[in-house]
């Protein structure tokens, strides 16, 4: 599903953000990416989203070759990926419902399908009571659930989450993680970037640790401590 081969990424100015990274993630896996600040975690996600191109190596996601693909194919790759950010990135002038519907509207989906799917997805993330509430009236955890609903609405093959719990209270963080795990059980591949080692360890999932742009450990599921 996700295949990094000898991937290096140098930013202009001489930062070596990633150095010869090999990662292979199968369909249906749940993976944590751990590492200190500046280790290259977000860079890894940016490469998957094809916001950046690798300086070296090759990346395959689903059936897309990210290095060779045409620019106008990028939107279609991104519809296979659902992204969640630490800062939620909701549009403040839109309700929870509208925020999710927006993601569908701008990808040429019929109004009928939008009306059917948005409430369904909001129910999955447990926000059926707050559909018509604006983001500033929602807690951090609830806002992140709206963002997650937005990421899920295209029925993506992969969910990418960059520090999804970074701005949320610890108890609510656990809820979000449980939700991601449930989504994973339904068949979606989930990649969660975090530097919260303790949180990652509670879930006994595969954990890839980055340090200075290199993979320093890759522990399979139950072996994690």
């Amino acid at each position, binding site marked *: 599903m996700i295949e990094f081969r000898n991937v290096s990424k140098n930013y202009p100015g001489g930062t070596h953000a990633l150095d010869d990274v090999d990662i292979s993630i199968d369909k249906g896996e749940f993976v944590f990416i751990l590492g200190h600040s500046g280790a290259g975690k977000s860079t890894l996600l940016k490469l998957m989203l094809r916001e950046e191109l690798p300086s070296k190596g090759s990346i395959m996601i689903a059936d897309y070759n990210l290095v060779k693909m045409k620019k106008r194919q990028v*939107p*279609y790759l*991104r*519809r296979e990926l659902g992204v969640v950010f630490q800062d939620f*990135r909701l*549009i403040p002038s839109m309700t929870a419902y509208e925020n999710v519907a*927006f993601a569908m509207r701008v*990808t*040429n989906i019929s109004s009928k399908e939008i009306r059917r799917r948005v409430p369904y997805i909001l129910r999955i993330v447990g926000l059926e009571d707050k559909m018509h509430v604006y983001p500033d009236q929602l807690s951090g955890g609830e806002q992140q659930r709206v963002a997650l609903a937005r990421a899920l609405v295209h029925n993506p093959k992969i969910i990418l989450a960059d520090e999804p719990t970074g701005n949320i209270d610890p108890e609510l963080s656990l809820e979000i993680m449980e939700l991601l795990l449930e989504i994973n059980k339904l068949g979606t591949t989930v990649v969660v970037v975090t530097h919260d080692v303790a949180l990652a360890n509670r879930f006994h999932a595969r954990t890839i640790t980055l340090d200075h742009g290199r993979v320093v450990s890759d522990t399979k599921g139950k072996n994690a401590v």
Partner: protein
Amino acid sequence: MRGSSLGYLIKKGISNIWLNRMMSAASMGILTACLIIVGGSGLLAVNIRDIFTAIENQNEMVIFIKEDATEEDVTVLGDKIDSLDHVSDYYYVSKAEALEEQKEYMGEKGYLLDGLEDDNPLPASYRLTLSGLEYLNETVEQLQHYRGVDTISAPTDLADTLTGVEKTALVLGSIIIGILIVASTVVISNTIRLTLFARRREINIMRYVGATNGFIRLPFVVEGMTIGIFSAVLAFGVIWAIYQSLGSLFAETRISWLTSVSNNLIPFMNLWYYVLGGFLIAGILIGSLSSSSSIRRYLKV
């Protein structure tokens, strides 16, 4: 793209105008002003053109022939005139014909000229009609040194003035129009850039959820085009009002040449579709070009 999506994106574009109403109003103001100035100059130009054409239709010259010219001189001159490109029509008027013409012109008093047949003071002449006023001077130069030519009567000063005015107006007009187009493009680009800034979160999300570039761009192009259309309609209304009221103002004055100008003004009813069409095309082009150029710079798409 499905209809409901298109409708949504167009609605978005129009709401962009409202989101940014101060700058949108400023853009429309400047574009309207530009269109009015350009359109006004255009209308002035076609009217002047019209008057010029009327004058040019009288672009005749008369070559008077000396008393002592031989028949050969007259024939040589006639052949030369015949060979000139810009002479659309010419004919010879003999002394006798000139006298006859003069008698007719004097009407009842024509009898006064009776008896002059043998001592006719009127010269023979060639009468020429040129294909354009601008050829007047060169034709005079080409013919004045021929043997038998006495004087040439032609409105050369008028020709110089009119041709000069036309040329100057053309150059000045192009410069002004160029400056105005650049100015409106800059102002509209800035307006669109402000909207882009105000909508940056949405654009960011659109990119992450896989909206195509067309979808991201369209609302902003709609915004620019709508500004263009509004400005065109507004400018059209203003131009119409000015044209009509200037016309009736001229008609009512006591200044006789203004009254005659107003009589010769091309009626707006014969021009309005050119004006509106031109304004709409210019407005839509300027609006959509300036928006797509600022989107390209902002999004790097």
